[in-house]
């Protein structure tokens, strides 16, 4: 009888542990605007700064932050990228499993070279994606991102109004949440640490 009780107890603990391990974090536990339930991240079928086709699936198993911006942006984009750079630094070695992808919404001025040089200023591992026309529009629509070139007296010095959200994709390629501009860096960092812990659970 005693042996049977011990067996049932061990079985109960094992099943509970397995059940907990299979559960992912409650979507509501994440900051920003969580996707409940999480949904597959739309593919980023664009070219990287080397002119090669990019595939999001190459980063399965890692955490990805996606941002839509442009290099001539004087205020919002560099502030966001500087924050992400600090997140990389704060994560230390764990930051090796994190990637930042910036999709330019201003392909006219953001050539591959301009984009690469700009991103290198922040972090050499930041990935730049660039494409034009419908290809870019389709990806922006999939992420519900808006961008509009503003009228300017000098046609070469225009500004671009754009959605300034950071999208968080987990290790399974699922969109988990997105952060509006001004989200405290600590909140994004804590969500990434939560996803990293989810993986090791």
């Amino acid at each position, binding site marked *: 009888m005693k042996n049977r009780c011990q067996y049932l107890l061990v079985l109960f603990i094992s099943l509970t542990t397995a059940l907990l391990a299979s559960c992912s974090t409650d979507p509501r536990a994440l900051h920003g605007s969580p996707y409940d339930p999480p949904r597959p991240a739309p593919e980023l079928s664009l070219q990287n700064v080397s002119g090669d086709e990019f595939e999001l699936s190459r980063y399965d198993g890692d955490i990805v932050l996606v941002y839509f911006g442009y*290099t*001539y*942006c*004087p*205020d*919002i984009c*560099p*502030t966001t990228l*500087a924050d992400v750079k600090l997140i990389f630094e704060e994560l230390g070695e764990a930051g090796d499993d994190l990637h930042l992808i910036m999709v330019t919404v201003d392909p006219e001025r953001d050539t591959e070279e301009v984009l690469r*040089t*700009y991103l290198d*200023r922040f972090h050499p591992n930041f990935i730049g994606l660039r494409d034009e026309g419908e290809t870019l529009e389709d990806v922006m629509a999939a992420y519900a991102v*808006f961008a*509009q070139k*503003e009228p300017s007296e000098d046609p070469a*010095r225009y*500004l671009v*109004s*754009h*959605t*300034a*959200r950071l999208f968080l994709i987990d290790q399974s390629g699922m969109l988990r949440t997105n952060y*509006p*501009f*001004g989200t405290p860096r600590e909140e994004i960092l804590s969500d990434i640490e939560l996803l990293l812990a989810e993986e090791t659970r």
Partner: protein
Amino acid sequence: MMKPRFLSLLLLTLLAACASGSGNLLIHNAWIRPADAGMNTAAYFVIESTGEEDRLLSVESRLAESTEIHRSYVDEAGVMRMQEQAFVIIPADGSISFEPGGLHIMFIELNRDLVLDEQIQLQLHFEKQGEITIDVPVEIP
């Protein structure tokens, strides 16, 4: 133990040591983001007034083809936009902050690289106080 009045005096002295000002305006916590020649960037600071209301009318520098006062804001659709400001009111006995995502001095098409830790100068033109020159470090806080 230091008395509160002495502490306040000490803080004000320290603030004044790192700030620029004229008359009843004090400008502190200034910084400008590094960027490459040809690109755009922004500068930020806090303006404090200990007197009557004033207006910041313009900012001058030799850094860029154009230097403008702008404000970033989020519209009702959640899109980040920017709007040039003809002037910025500095409230009487109050302060106003230029900060990322809000008011900022925009430098369009830099004439040269702005390198971390160097210092640049800006001339701020106020309606009542006239011109105030400030030293601004190139940094990422």
